[in-house]
């Protein structure tokens, strides 16, 4: 499974919603993600990609679209 598909699966699992959304679309504005699902998404990313996301990186904007999440993961590579 490629990374984008994996991210979509993580979002589905965390939000319990269908994730039919473009990579640049806002996960918050589209209603996919809400404030209380965001911490679960961050935890799932840490687990799936074996990274520790420091609190200083916990800016909601970094996780507001699939593309932004990919950019963040690239920055941690």
């Amino acid at each position, binding site marked *: 499974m490629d990374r984008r598909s994996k991210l979509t699966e993580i979002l589905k699992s965390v939000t319990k919603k269908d994730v039919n959304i473009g990579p640049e679309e806002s996960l*918050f504005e589209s209603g996919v993600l809400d*404030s*209380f699902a*965001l*911490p679960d998404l*961050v935890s799932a990313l840490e687990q799936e990609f074996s990274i520790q996301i420091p*609190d*200083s990186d*916990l*800016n*909601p904007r970094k996780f507001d679209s699939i593309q932004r999440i990919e950019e963040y993961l690239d920055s941690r590579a």
Partner: protein
Amino acid sequence: MAFIAEFGCWLPEHIVTSAEAGSWVGSDAEWVRNVSGIDERRFAAETDTVADLAARAGADCLGRAGLAAKHLGMILVASGTAERSFPGPACAAARLLGAEHVPALDIPMASAGSLFALSLASRLAGQLGPILVIGAEIMSRVVLREPRERGVAILFGDGAGACLVSPNAGRAEIIDSFLASDGSFADDLKLDHGAPLQMNGRSVILQASRKIPAAIRTVLDRNGVAPAAVQSFLMHQANQNLLDKIAASLGVPPERFFSNIRRYGNTSSASLLIAACEWSRAEGFRSGAPVVFAAFGAGFHWGALLARGV
């Protein structure tokens, strides 16, 4: 070593329902309940000051403890909604309590203020004598400022809570506390002079949902206490969904987290001590059982405190 001797609280009579609060932002009671767990909150009278509320909660606490205010070693008043920059409400509350000559210190920190004050009191009581810690807020005057933000206006209420910290005896011994601050997020939750409260709710919840469990684990680990062994978790009442998330993160049943947010909303610095006061009267410390206090708020400031029933 210091002890929690007694709690006190005071809530205004005027109830504002979530149907009314929801109507301010074009929504209804069900939406308010879903996003916050709040059914109603109390609003203070127009003539009340933060010091008035503080003094009423303080008097309730001292009355239950049977201690005259003049015998206090210090009064600490946490509030983020004082009417003026200075003097703060601490000295006015001390005067109202009949403790004019007792040193009175303001802690203008908002939601984490009473936790920080409790921690300071536990360290100072041995030198100064009994310390009255108060958290008092009139949030209604802030949230009613225009424009009313959808995610802010429905959350808050008014009230005051108090705790008497004694150097030599009480219902519970304060074992340890952990405090932390990070100014990187100062703009994510702030109240500028005369302005409406501004909150980046996503950032607050994201940070709080990580930092509060971590702070609680810090004090528990340092003292060899497992989360499952904690009798009750007494929290700043920010949002029911956040309390449930923290309970899940620690792997303890949500019922261990005392909650009264349904009836009072988020009363900022007052909420921790109002919750502790009601918990104390409903359940109270069991001998030898650990109890955790924790809070998170503007700053960000956060922390946790461990006490054990005597």
